[in-house]
C-alpha cells in the first residue's frame, strides 16, 4: 500500500475511535444498558454508522473503478453463509453480554482512559489466538 493510504487509514481510525468514545460505546455499562432494554442509544450508533457506510459502499463503486489511492479494487464484506460464521456469532454474542464491549470499543477504551478494558483486550487476543490454533491449516 502507498504511504498516503497508511495516513488515510490512520485518520479513518481516529474518526472511528472518536465516534466510539463520543457515543460512549467505550463504557461497557452503556452497551449493557442497551442489552437490558434500558437505553436504546446503541441502535442509533449502529444505524448512523450503517447509513453512512451503506451510502459509500453502494455509491462509490458505481462512480469509480478504483479507490483514490490504490489499484486493488473495492473490497466487499460478504462472508460465507455457513455454520462457522453463525456459530462464531453466537459465541461472540455471549462474550459481548459478559463484558459489554466488542473489539473496537475495547481498544478505544484504552485511549479514553478506561484502563480496566485492558483485561478485555487481553481476552480478545487470547481468544483470537485459540481460534487460530484450532483452525485447519
Amino acid at each position: 500500500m502507498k504511504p498516503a493510504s497508511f495516513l488515510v487509514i490512520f485518520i479513518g481510525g481516529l474518526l472511528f475511535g472518536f465516534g466510539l468514545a463520543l457515543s460512549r460505546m467505550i463504557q461497557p455499562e452503556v452497551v449493557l444498558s442497551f442489552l437490558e432494554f434500558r437505553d436504546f442509544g446503541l441502535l442509533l450508533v449502529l444505524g448512523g454508522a450503517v447509513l453512512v457506510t451503506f451510502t459509500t459502499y453502494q455509491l462509490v463503486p458505481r462512480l469509480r473503478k478504483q479507490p483514490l489511492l490504490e489499484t486493488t479494487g473495492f473490497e466487499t464484506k460478504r462472508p460465507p453463509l455457513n455454520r462457522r460464521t453463525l456459530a462464531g456469532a453466537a459465541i461472540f454474542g455471549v462474550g459481548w453480554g459478559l463484558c459489554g464491549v466488542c473489539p473496537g470499543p475495547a481498544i478505544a477504551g484504552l485511549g479514553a482512559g478506561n484502563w480496566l478494558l485492558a483485561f478485555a483486550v487481553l481476552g480478545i487476543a487470547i481468544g483470537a489466538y485459540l481460534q487460530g490454533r484450532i483452525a485447519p491449516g
Partner: protein
Amino acid sequence: MMHLFPNGWIHYLLGGLLIGAGVSLNFVFTGRVTGMSSVFSAGWSFVSQRAFFQQARFLATRYWRLLLALGVVLGALLWRSWLGPSADIATGLPWWRLLAGGLLIGFGARLSDGCTSGHGICGLASLSLSSLLAVIIFLATAIVSVHLLMSLGMR
C-alpha cells in the same frame, strides 16, 4: 423518546455518523473494509509462526491494521482530552467478566470472520445475508446472556 433514550440521543447518532465517516474514508481512498477483530489475528502473525497466522491475508494487512488500531486509540484519547468528562469513566465490571467476555468475543469474532464492525457495519452496508444473520444471532445471544446474568443477580 425520553424513555427510549434516558441519557439523550444526539451523541449516539453523531458518534455513529463519525464511525461511518471513518469506515467510508478508508473505503473511498484504499478500497478496504474496516473490521476491527482482524487486527488481533494479524497481530499474532508477528509472534506465532503457525501456518494459520502466516497466511497472506494477515501478512499483507498487518501493518495497516495495527495503524488503524492505533488511530482508534488516539481518536478516543482526543475525545477524552477535548470533550471528555473530568470524572472517572472506569468500568465497574469485575476483571474476570472483561477477561472471560473478551476471550469469547475474540474467539467468536475470528471464527465468524467479523464482529460488530465487520458484520454489523461493513457487512450490513454490503447487503450481506450472512452478516445480517450473524448480527441477529449475536444480538440475540448477547441479550440472553445479559438477562441470564441479571437473573443471577449480576448487573
